């Protein structure tokens, strides 16, 4: 029930924001903040309360209500460690997304916060839906408001970026829908029980020729979201054109739905095919790491640069998932979290710089440390996190992934580690071009406001905490990971 409540709060909060904006623009901000913070508190409450999974481990909460019974569709939400971690991330970044649009969005505020909260609701739904129809439903629900976020409040090329984002993800989504339907009918014809329920479909007997096609549909959908290298084309455009909150949600959360999908659906549903995919996925992951890093190095646009670092980091996620090792899988989940935080923070700061300088062009920036010392410090911290400096969360994640992958494929792991050197290159260049070097702008800029302090310190504390004490997260997801790897 609490899961449905969380999603409901976001949906209703979104509508209220829209309505409230008719009377007062400020009210909609506060409603949005309230909705996001309430959900954050609720999910944190879940975490504190549910130390012990109880009888049906690894699932903490299970909520089911019939929805379209004639098709075997139910409103089935469930929470395990993995979902909980991702929900926490969703609401944490969601709160920050509201905060960082506090002043940035000046027009149509009500509709903006409506779109923001509905995107969050879709993402949260994806992480807890345990009915494949419902999963697809939420998968689509997050697209339309995200499209509006990019298309209405984005930068100069926003239309193009928004179309590209929508059509890429939608194409993947529909292929996934076909796969879901095929699975549904095969399961129904085999057992006589037509249902979209995750747990029933888990044990579907598939003959290899059919499962090959079905898994392809799922994999393409998730690979587009993640993104895996040949399908990453939409990402730089969408990330760089979106408003700050949009980039934050895209990098921090939307990409994670792809990773989540692979972990939640492809591995347990198709164990045999996953092994076959791994032959492709691991090289593709390594390609992504290296290619993303090289492209990031050559960008002149700050947000585009950060966007390509996402491509590179998501390569590690793919690598970790398809090594089928417990350590690597733990690393993958850490990577999902820490990448969300560190890259999210970089996008937030890119947004802050944009607000002050009205540009994203690295060529025009430089020497900002003298005028913006606090932001410079924070930027340095998150750049270091992004390149994998020990003590910060990303180091743990990447280290675990590489550790887990090494026995599976030493050569590719070595190549992937090479990506870390490249990441140092592009990260240092990024800091060099923005905050160091000769000062570019003569007039004084305002350093962090208290709201920005709050945002950045929340992010900094969490990335350091994850770097120093990753154990709670590892404990939380261990049962899930064990179960996955044992297949």
């Amino acid at each position, binding site marked *: 029930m609490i899961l449905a409540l969380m999603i409901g709060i976001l949906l209703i909060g979104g509508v209220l924001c829209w309505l409230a904006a008719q009377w007062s623009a400020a009210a909609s901000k506060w409603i949005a903040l309230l909705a996001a913070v309430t959900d954050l508190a609720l999910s944190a409450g879940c975490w504190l309360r549910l130390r012990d999974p109880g009888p049906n481990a690894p699932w903490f909460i299970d909520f089911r209500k019939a929805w*379209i019974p004639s098709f075997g569709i139910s409103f089935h939400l469930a929470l395990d460690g993995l979902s909980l971690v991702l929900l926490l991330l969703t609401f944490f970044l969601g709160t920050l997304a509201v905060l960082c649009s506090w002043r940035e969005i000046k027009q*149509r505020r009500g509709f903006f916060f409506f779109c923001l909260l509905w995107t969050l609701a879709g993402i949260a739904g994806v992480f807890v839906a345990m009915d494949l129809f419902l999963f*697809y439903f939420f998968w*689509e629900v997050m697209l339309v408001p995200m499209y*509006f976020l990019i298309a209405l409040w984005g930068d100069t090329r926003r*239309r193009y970026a928004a179309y590209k984002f929508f059509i890429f993800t*939608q*194409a993947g989504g529909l292929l996934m829908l*076909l796969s879901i*339907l095929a699975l549904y009918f095969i399961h129904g014809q085999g057992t006589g029980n037509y249902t979209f329920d995750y747990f029933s479909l888990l044990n579907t007997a598939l003959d290899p020729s059919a499962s090959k096609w079905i898994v392809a549909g799922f994999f393409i959908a998730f690979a587009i979201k993640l993104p895996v290298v040949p399908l990453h084309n939409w990402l730089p455009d969408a990330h760089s054109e979106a408003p700050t909150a949009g980039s934050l949600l895209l990098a921090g959360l939307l990409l994670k739905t792809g990773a989540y999908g692979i972990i939640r659906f492809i591995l347990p549903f198709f164990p045999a095919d996953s092994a076959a995919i791994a032959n492709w996925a691991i090289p593709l992951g390594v390609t992504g790491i290296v290619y993303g890093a090289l492209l990031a190095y050559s960008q002149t646009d700050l947000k585009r640069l950060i966007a390509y670092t996402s491509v590179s980091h998501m390569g590690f996620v793919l690598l970790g998932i398809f090594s089928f090792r417990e350590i690597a899988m733990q690393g993958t989940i850490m990577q999902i979290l820490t990448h969300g935080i560190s890259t999210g923070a970089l996008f937030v700061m890119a947004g802050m710089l944009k607000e002050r300088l009205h540009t994203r062009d690295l060529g025009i920036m430089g020497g900002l440390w003298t005028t913006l010392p606090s932001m410079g410090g924070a930027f340095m911290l998150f750049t270091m996190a992004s390149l994998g400096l020990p003590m910060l969360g990303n180091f743990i994640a990447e280290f675990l992934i590489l550790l887990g992958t090494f026995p599976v494929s030493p050569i590719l792991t070595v190549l992937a580690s090479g990506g870390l050197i490249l990441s140092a290159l592009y990260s240092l260049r990024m800091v060099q071009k923005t905050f160091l070097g000769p000062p570019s702008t003569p007039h004084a800029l305002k350093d962090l406001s208290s709201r920005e302090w709050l945002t950045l310190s929340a992010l900094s504390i969490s990335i350091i905490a994850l770097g120093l004490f990753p154990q709670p997260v590892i404990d939380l997801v261990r049962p899930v990971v064990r179960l996955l790897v044992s297949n």
Partner: protein
Amino acid sequence: MTTTQFDALLPYTLLAAASLVVILLIAFRRSHTVIQVVGFILMCMVIAALLKVRSVLPVAVPPLFRIDGLALLFTALIVFCVLIIGLFSFVYFEEREENPKEYYILLFLSTLGATILTISVHFISFFIGLELLSVSLYALVAYLRTRNNAVEAGMKYLVLAALSSAFLLFGMALIYMDKGTMDFTAIVPSGSILFIMGAGMMVVAIGFKLALVPFHLWAADVYQGAPTPVTSFIATVSKIGVFAVLLRFAQSIHLQQHPEVYTVFVVLAIASMIAGNLLALVQQNIKRLLAYSSIAHFGYLLVSFLTIGEAGTQASIFYLLAYSIALLAAFGVIVLLSTRQKEAEDLADFRGLFWKRPLMAAVFTIALLSLAGIPLTAGFPAKFFVLASGVRQHLWLPVVVLVLTSIVGFYYYLRVIGVLFAEAPETPGLQQREPKERLLQPYFYAAIYATLVVLTALSFWLGILPATTTDGIREFLLIR
């Protein structure tokens, strides 16, 4: 004819009477408002009659008609559409130059034609229904006879529809020659050359009426030229009627046992999906865009039609319902934004609508999202049911084409939505509240606004809780 049969025909008799009532009203009291109100009440009576006759069904009225659950569903859908179209017509024609009263006679006559199609099980009633529908439509399309577009559209529709009627008749004649019967149920499948030719000719005629590719060439021009309420009539009522008879015919003769004809429909479906969506991409005129999009939608619909079974029929009806709701909402917005001088049909007329008239734009957006099949709107479960029925029957090729072409579809729906949400132009366009609203009956405007809101709410309701509707549809389909 027994009393039961007579009772069962009540809704259709009432519809026939509706035209007569309007004729008499015109003779005695020429008031648009009165005709409108009476028409509205008559349509409500038809719906009440439909509910009433439900208990006596199924009833066969040999040899022409058969009134069963399927017919009732289609008739209800048609009358529902006509109710709303009638409302649009008032506002639309009240401010046009043409005397609007006779319009309602034609409207109700063609509605009668469409509903007769839903109950016919015989070539004669099929043909009579179709002609009632088309002949009234010739006049309706060209109703604004001083406007060039309207006359062009009327001529085009007349010539092509007459031609397709000829095809239909010839096809029927060939089948009759081969089988010696005109009763759908008595036609036994066979592979004889006469039968194949006859069926082929009938496919041409039906393809024309449903605007399936390659018989779609009239669609865009007629949609654009016809008065907007008539356009919505063609897009919904006329197509629903023809689809109903096609469905019944296909079920009676067990279409899936005629691989030749079946393959033809597969090809038509695929061609319609591809061509409809691709051509819609380049349109700058909303009405033309909706024309091509409805071509594509009937391509999708054929996928569920091809499964010829319980699930497929159910999916088709749900799809038609969702499609009609979305399309009527979209056309309602066009009617409201049009002025006496100019139809609101260019994309440019809609620029920035959201920031000036948010309600209109929200209704339009949701209609387009529903047509695109986005969750929370009726279009999503509709598309889902169609896909599900296709996958169940292993119609892989049409299903995959459906998926790929609907991705193309997203692009043009999003393009329109993007325009709705774009920055508004400086110069005041059609979107300003016109003084006309004060001149006309404010009650009717309120009614249209309310209708649009109800349509949108219906779309959400079907999108979020489709179960009740699908169960209702299944219950009706069991009456046979």
